[in-house]
């Protein structure tokens, strides 16, 4: 299942990473001494039940949160050394996100949603429009450019989100439970699309899921439980 051979340089590194959340009196150890390396071009799944630490790890890699201890390196940058503005710029340039709840802006059309990340990069308007259109065509939504999110189905919304993550040509796209709000058939379609983009656009994907059928599409699976890496469950996944 591990296909390191066909992948490039190390893109993500988690070195002895711990993350503790404090909720009033109690503290929750969301991650405990996690080590993980992800190489360019991987299509990596973080697997585990809810509360296993998948989302926390994705958030740390995505520079949305900071580890309590340990180091996170993204494309060779120690993200702990960046201030909030520099982190924002880093995210804008390097990282794409796909969310479980799609997180499209409801007042913007599909095309405008996809244009938004390029607005942050100060891309000129004509180029924004052109690239947004291309990205939406790439995810099969050429006919829905001017639709608002509430005029789209769940699967279509997630495709818009994928186009939005893809359009700024990031090094890596993180997807937190991208199929959890979709039916089985659509979930497989969305994952297949991500897989296609992974190979055609050479974008690294790291996504979390607890759906075994979806896991089967991953090039590598990182199993987690109680904030630690664990061996694969006994039942092997069909490839």
């Amino acid at each position, binding site marked *: 299942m591990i296909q390191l051979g066909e992948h490039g340089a190390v893109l993500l590194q988690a070195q002895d990473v711990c993350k503790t959340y404090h909720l009033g009196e109690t503290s929750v150890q969301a991650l405990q001494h996690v080590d993980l390396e992800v190489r360019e071009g991987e299509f990596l799944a973080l697997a585990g039940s809810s509360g296993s630490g998948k989302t926390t790890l994705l958030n740390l890699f995505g520079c*949305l*949160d900071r580890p309590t201890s340990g180091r996170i390196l993204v494309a060779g940058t120690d993200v702990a050394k960046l201030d*909030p503005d520099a982190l*924002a710029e*880093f*995210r804008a340039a390097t990282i794409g996100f796909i969310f479980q*709840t799609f997180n499209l*802006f409801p*007042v913007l059309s599909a095309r405008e949603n996809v244009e938004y990340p390029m*607005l942050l990069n100060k891309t000129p308007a004509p180029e924004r429009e052109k690239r947004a259109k291309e990205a939406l065509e790439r995810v099969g939504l050429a006919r829905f450019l001017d639709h608002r999110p509430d005029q789209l189905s769940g699967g279509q919304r997630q495709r818009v989100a994928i186009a939005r993550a893809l359009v700024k040509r990031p090094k890596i796209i993180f997807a937190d439970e991208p199929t959890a709000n979709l039916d089985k058939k659509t979930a497989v379609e969305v994952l297949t699309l991500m897989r296609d983009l992974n190979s055609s656009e050479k974008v690294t994907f790291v996504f979390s899921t607890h759906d075994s059928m979806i896991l089967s599409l991953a090039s590598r699976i990182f199993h987690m439980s109680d904030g630690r890496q664990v061996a694969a469950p006994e039942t092997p996944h069909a490839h």
Partner: protein
Amino acid sequence: MRIRIAIRNTFRNKRRTALNVFMIASGVASLILFKGFSANLILSIREGTIQFQYGHLQVARESLWKNSAENPNENLIPDYQGLLKRIQDVPSVKSATGWIGFYGLLGAKDRTVGAQLLSLDPVNESLRLSNLVMVEGKAANYTGGQKVLLGAGVASALRAKVGDNLNLLGYTYDGLVNALDVEVAGIFKSGLKEIDNVTAMIPLEVSQKLLDTKDVEKFIIYLKSTELTEDGRRAVSSLLDSGPRGLEIKPWYELAAFYKEVRSFYNLYDAVIQLIILSLVLIGILNTIGMSVFERTGEMGTMRALGETQRNIVRQFVLEGAVLGVFGGVVGAVAGAVLALVINAIDFRAPMPGASLPQRIQILLPIWNFVEALALTLAASMVAAVIPAVRAVKLEIVDALRRNI
């Protein structure tokens, strides 16, 4: 594109936006109405002060202004006719007239009352004359001959009625006692009891006859409009050299101490009312804008995940506040203007300080009032957006993202 996003977000929740627009518009409309009303009030007081009390410009000898004359003769302007004629010919001058004020004794049968006798020209100062409310007699009778208008208090002290003949006694400029018979043409109320108790008006020629002089103490100059004050002042000043020496000109605003006090009082009063209106607008929209911002915390999380800085997010929300402010402001400006025109169309009169006749209530609509009202409410709605936005954007990204459902 950011403005487009701001506009769409502003009109996302129509009911809430309608409420905000209503509040901002009410604020703008009340500011426009209030400021227009108070501007008119101040203008009325100004014009009242000029027309009924001081004229636009006064010319007198320096010694009169400084009250430094050893002998009242020194205050007189000799051979004034030529100069007065030239002043009357200045294009911005509507009328100019000589003036004398003195203390005299008015006697009727067995009663004698001391009074201040002021010149009032029946023709050139018809506005001033018309401002005196005649409680007896008619202003029209105050022409030709040795007529006098008595303040109501003076008349009652003398038990004088219209048509009575009074004996007017005074000292000439040479220090001699002189007396004249004058006929009561009317009894007036100026609006201030203090004035009515001690004042009587007589034509300049009568004063000159009694005081045995051909001179005057002052010129009272009325201009075609108050806006011409500086023009008129320059033009008249340049003529003064051709007249008797030591003449000095004073514009109305240096003379009208009462107007200055009233105006500074109203400026303060305006500021307080403005502050109250703005606070009400701010408190009103702070809550609803705060609700919108709070509901969009998840969206803020998404924006930040996509690489937007906190500063830019706050800016975006302030832009939305500005869109709301502009929209509400325009609605309010139109509503305010319409209401003002309706109020102006109704002939509604109320007593005002400085003018003893009730004045018509008018709402002035200078462009400056619109600009100021719009700018103030725009600022208020931006402040109302920046406060909750700054608070919401401080939330950790992961916590904000959890608000997306």
